[in-house]
């Protein structure tokens, strides 16, 4: 395959950045998208040019480290992570535009690498059950109906990649935040801190500068793990019932 890549290059956070065009030849359709970028980087390195920096780690679609806004879509044309996207999804001679996630709360670090520490801070605000190690009841002490456990699991499969934010015209983090709030709101272990958790995580989400939700559903449509929009509805309900009877007055 022969391709033309238009790649966002930005030296560091304070640089303005711009697109640079690279022609690329000899790409196999069996390569993953990141392997295609590896080829580009080997070529650039051999010429003595700075390789394109991008985040990636497991390359199995689970760590959530890879990102990339490809031809106007987070993680590209398939509903999967960029590392699992293969070149057979593109055609010979195609021009591919590659940008970093664009959101105020995800500042660009270099080229295609962004800072997603805001997600960590949302979890730190309450995305946990406050139990210390040891002294917990036997795992089978509290039966959990299979349907509930399965639904909690579906919410818990979020990989924290940030595609939902990148897909949203408001750069809202509602899908990410709601996935964690939903998971813990459904499980018996999460009940004690349920109200507080919803209030605090949403406050942190707002403080980070993520936008508001206008229910377009772009986040769920682009989520590589298929996290459902239902979680946002559930989070809204959790939030309103929490503020109406808040313990934090």
């Amino acid at each position, binding site marked *: 395959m022969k391709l033309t890549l238009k790649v966002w290059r930005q030296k560091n956070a304070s640089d303005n950045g711009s697109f640079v065009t690279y022609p690329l030849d000899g790409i196999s359709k069996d390569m*993953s998208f990141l392997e295609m970028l590896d080829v580009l980087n080997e070529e650039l*390195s051999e010429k003595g040019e700075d390789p394109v920096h991008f985040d990636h780690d497991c390359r199995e679609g*689970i760590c959530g480290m890879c990102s990339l806004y490809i031809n106007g879509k987070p993680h590209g044309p398939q509903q999967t992570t960029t590392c699992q996207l*293969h070149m057979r999804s593109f055609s010979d001679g195609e021009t591919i535009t590659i940008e970093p996630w664009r959101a105020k709360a995800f500042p660009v670090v270099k080229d295609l690498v962004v800072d997603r520490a805001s997600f*960590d801070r949302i*979890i730190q605000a309450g995305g946990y059950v406050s*139990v210390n190690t*040891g002294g917990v009841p036997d795992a089978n002490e509290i039966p*959990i109906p299979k349907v509930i*456990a399965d639904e909690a699991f579906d919410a818990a499969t979020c990989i924290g990649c940030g595609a939902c934010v990148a897909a949203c015209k408001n750069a809202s983090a509602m899908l990410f935040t709601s996935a964690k709030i939903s998971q813990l709101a459904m499980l018996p272990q999460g009940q004690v801190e349920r109200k507080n958790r919803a209030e605090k995580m949403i406050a942190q989400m707002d403080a980070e500068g993520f936008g508001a939700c206008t229910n377009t559903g772009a986040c769920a449509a682009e989520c590589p793990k298929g996290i459902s929009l239902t979680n946002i509805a559930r989070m809204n309900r959790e939030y309103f019932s929490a503020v109406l009877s808040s313990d934090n007055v």
Partner: protein
Amino acid sequence: MILDSKSPAGPLAEKWTKHKFTSKLVNPANKRKYEVIVVGTGLAGASAAASLAELGYNVKAFCFQDSPRRAHSIAAQGGINAAKNYQNDGDSVFRLFYDTIKGGDYRARESNVYRLAEVSVNIIDQCVAQGVPFAREYGGLLANRSFGGAQVSRTFYARGQTGQQLLLGAYSALSRQVANGKVKLYPRTEMMDLVTIDGEARGIVTRNLITGAIETHAAHAVLLCTGGYGNVFFLSTNAMGSNVTAAWRAHKKGAYFANPCYTQIHPTCIPVSGDHQSKLTLMSESLRNDGRVWVPKTVEMAEKLRKGQIKPADIKEEDRDYYLERKYPSFGNLVPRDVASRNAKYVCDEGRGVNETGEAVFLDFRDAINRDSEDAIRARYGNLFDMYQQITGENPYKTPMMIYPAVHYTMGGLWVDYNLMTTVPGLYALGEANFSDHGANRLGASALMQGLADGYFVIPYTLGDYLAQNLATKVDTNHPEFTKAADEVKAKIKKLLSINGTKTVDHFHKRLGKIMWNECGMARTAEGLKKAKAEIKALRAEFWKDVKVLGENEELNQSLEKAHRVADFLELGELMVDDALNRNESCGGHFREEYQTPEGEALRDDENYAYAAAWKYMGDEQEEELNKEPLVFENVKLTQRSYK
């Protein structure tokens, strides 16, 4: 030197309880006076950092990824073992202990393995309390599946992404302590060296991967939870960033490296498709519960398959060789990983491989789908099937999967005693980074168990015993040893950036990987290993003359990051070869062709090699010194492993 494991005396089942009682305690008011450094935030690191912070210690946690949640534990699929015996099928702590010792081909330390089995039950309780959504039965209780190397169902799982759920549980506990101010996080920060003062670990040197700043951090103890070194093979199932640098640099500062040649080749991975390949993808071993492994009976038929003249479905039942079921009737497709991998190699070496490259066997779900329905199989393995289809473009519900072994896990690692302390006082190694629990071969669903056991339930006790004796120790980065170590790191970076040769870092990494895979992979020979040693030495010399590392230090520089890691792999590779050469026997993942039974199984030499080989670094380009920890088996009888 003969190493002392410091295993407590007394009956096996009482060792840990007794040890916990005799270990010194740090009183709650004093705990806040201690600083602890945790490097790595996978299952071992995150669970250790969270648990120690809960106890009151001040913890600094480091990871090279952008968030602690990305650590490669997240990619573990199949499950986590625990001796809960919820299934009433005859499981017990002793049976889990026995299976693990036997699965490890009698090359692990009894006391550690028993403790692992003992605390396994607590791990499940802990994770459920954190809100980890394990698979459940309709009655609401936890579900189990069986796994290779065991005849009971003791594996807890969360569909095909158990590692993710467990890591997110540990990450949530860690996040809670960050919010409490007891853990300070340092993401995108890589450990570059260990700092020792008077022979004890007192801190680390790090590089901020965004700014390039070389920083020093002091502490009363340093915990390395930095995973394994499988990426020495270039192609492996490890994450791209997984590396040996932290452990290796600690090794060069005095920590012995044990059994480096014990590497696990996982039997069920997606086969290599071409030279562009950057990593290999594992398909969980749990698939072997329902999938049947086979190749055609004849080379002729395999050739037709490879040329695309016939399809797998065209091959009649009587022309298929379900070789694992044939050779190992009692364990069948569920034989341990090393046995399954080696047999895949044998049938492919015979010319019966089934893909274009001739290096693949079938994993077929046809019978399971006919028996249980496609929906039932989807519920069990849906995400794995999707992943397979995504990567290969083939639908495994309709046509059998193709699999081939790939490097997956390293049983070797830093030598640790019963307290998980390395040979450097104050330096600990947890999880895959240490060598302690899996012997020469790890059973499926035991890595998650070990990582969390070490972090949640072992280190909180054993660390206190060391710290209690060090209350008066002041730790301060102003000590000249910190400046010295930081200057050495800076000099190394300068050197790497100044070589300005002609070949990229990846070029060297790929060549090293090829040497390791060919000569120190699934099957090894003395001759091949000797050849590999010379080749690695030459490659290392070439690297330091001709590598091209672009850019500068004071920026995000991924080629510089890689250069450090590959430089260390080039040294480790040679030690792995030395270790494989020294071990004149076959055991578990270490298979020396010269030592096999008439049936082609691993032939151990218990008389001469029932020891852990712990290597001491002796200086640049010097041969390392071999030290031994004799392995004493008081509770199991050493037998030829049989899964027939």
